[in-house]
């Protein structure tokens, strides 16, 4: 059977494993958060996997990303260790940031993951720094900042787009448009809601893709990333997508239309769409995906058990890794 897709068979299975890992991670957190054992808030990426993975499949460790409050999916797609992530969410000493960051501050610079961020729109100026570093160091690294339709209105995002444009930085602004800024519809809160227009206002190209279609995101991301690596400068990629859960865990979601979540899961589940395509083409078999499902379930179970059993940071370490002197 010929493979008609732009990824090898192994690449397709890798993409599936990453998306499945994110889904399983988030679905388990949805259950575990309700027990009250996790401090703070969590914001789940379930339903949005195709965007994060479709983009990150093009990146290497020297490429940097700046994430959002909804950052678990970005971390996993960028290669951050899942067990360290889970421990971090539980605030344990074995966490990716020694238990001091929690869900909204997971980072792993060795993987180019500059951090989730609880401040909306705060990743945009950070990624301009990463882009400037790549430019000055002369390597082909790119920087990608993610932000939502809500954060798209933040001054930091718009100022960063201006900065990236005037310095011709290898930076990509990814709008993850899931339709809601917390509980406020994008239709209400965003004037002239074409993000492509906003990019054009800063002299950079922008495009919109169906963020529930892995292949649409993968193809579009490949082109904007290649453009940035080749010195073509910044661009904007809007992924229209859905989130399965509320803004945060515990959100009653009264702002949604009746049946909206059910319809999304039935018709716009990016994992179902992806598996439907690769199975229909005969490139992979159901059994191969089932093996990955089982391995991923075991990994998440191990991560959970490990996180729960791990020690809390000691009081003596309260101020270490928090302040930097320079």
């Amino acid at each position: 059977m010929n493979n008609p897709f732009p990824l090898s068979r192994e690449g397709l299975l890798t993409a599936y494993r990453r998306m499945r890992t994110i889904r399983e991670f988030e679905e388990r957190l949805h259950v575990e958060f309700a027990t009250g054992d996790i401090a703070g808030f969590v914001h789940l990426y379930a339903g949005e996997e195709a965007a994060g993975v479709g983009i990150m499949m093009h990146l290497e460790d020297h490429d940097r990303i700046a994430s959002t409050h909804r950052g678990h999916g970005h971390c996993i797609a960028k290669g951050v260790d899942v067990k360290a992530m889970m421990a971090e969410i539980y605030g344990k000493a074995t966490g990716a940031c020694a238990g001091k960051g929690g869900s909204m501050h997971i980072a792993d610079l060795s993987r180019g993951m500059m951090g989730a961020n609880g401040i909306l729109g705060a990743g945009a100026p950070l990624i301009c720094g990463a882009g400037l570093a790549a430019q000055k160091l002369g390597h082909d690294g790119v920087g990608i900042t993610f932000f939502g339709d809500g954060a798209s209105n933040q001054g930091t995002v718009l100022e960063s787009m201006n900065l990236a444009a005037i310095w011709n930085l290898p930076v990509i602004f990814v709008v993850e448009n899931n339709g809601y800024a917390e509980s406020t519809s994008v239709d209400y809160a965003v004037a002239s809601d074409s993000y492509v227009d906003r990019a054009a206002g800063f002299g950079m190209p922008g495009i919109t893709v169906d963020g529930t279609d892995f292949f649409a995101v993968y193809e579009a991301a490949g082109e904007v990333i290649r453009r940035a690596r080749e010195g073509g400068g910044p661009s904007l990629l809007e992924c229209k997508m859905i989130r399965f859960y509320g803004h945060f865990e515990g959100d009653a979601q009264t702002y949604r239309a009746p049946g909206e979540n059910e319809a999304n899961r039935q018709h716009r589940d990016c994992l179902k769409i992806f598996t439907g395509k690769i199975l229909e083409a005969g490139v992979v078999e159901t059994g191969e995906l089932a093996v990955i499902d089982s391995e991923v379930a075991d990994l998440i179970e191990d991560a959970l058990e490990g996180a729960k059993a791990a020690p809390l940071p000691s009081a003596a370490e309260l101020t270490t890794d928090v302040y930097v002197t320079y």
Partner: protein
Amino acid sequence: MRAVGIIANPVSARDIRRIVSHAGNLPINDRANIVLRLLTGLAAADVSDVVVMPENGGIRTQLMRTIERERRMGTARLPAVTYLDMPVTSTYLDSAAAARRMADMDVGAIVVLGGDGTHRVVASSCGQTPIAGVSTGTNNAFPEFREPTITGLAVGLATSGLVPADIALALNKRLVVTVNGRHEIALVDAAVVAERYVGARAIWKTESFRDLFATFGEADGIGMSSLVGLTDPLDRTTPQGRRIRLAPAGTAPRTLAFPVAPGLIGRIGILSVETMAPDVPCRPSVTSGSIALDGERELTFGEADDVSIRLETDAFRTVCVSDCMAFAARHGLLVHQSSSPCHEGEPR
């Protein structure tokens, strides 16, 4: 006077061709301005009612802001604008749903803002309701470039009956693509490419192109149909189509340079150029791949699938703007007699 429909979907012309070529972006405020110019032309032709596709992208906000201001100031004479009562998905599906509803309302014509893809979606759903295109898309082989004020005038004259239907309206060809019983249409071209996934939809990688089927092709056209225009041109009315068998550049007896998209010249091998007769099904040259309808991948097929491409003539109606305006000029349709006689030396 029958109402006129306007479909201005803010999601059109946002695809990957803004990265892989140098395709433009028509901002939301310019789209709103185009609708206002259409309304001005329609009003001048005495159209009193216009129905518009609802959207949440910002066109409506700017449009109604301007209409309301001009109404308060008493400076405008625009038709009454109402929005269809329909759910908004912020996808191309809105264009199809609006076209169906406007056809059900028996509007006199539907004016469409967009390129080939948007016009295809509307023509798929509007039955025999005439459409008039305003070129605002990426590839614009189907809609002609023209000032929207004039399109509004012509549509108004056609809808009112001041220009007879046999002059105002034209019948058009289309392609019907069938995959296992599922029918889709193309207004300009259907391209078979080797990639068997839809992905970012647009096509630009010429090495994967295998077949082109087209209803017409002009030598100064843009996109896939320019292959017809540059090899064996065909107009919009002759009851035949063209099929061109394609191969990667350098692997065929001749290689042709052609404008794949705005700012992107590609090279492609030409194996043969053939005439398509109406109503005769054709099969793709390859057993698996995808089919791009008017420039966008829509359908995938494999070895087990039954695929055919067929030319239909007299398939749907469009408003002939230039013919309407020429008729209006010949018959003085826009001339209003002055109540006082002209004096010597005044312009007549």
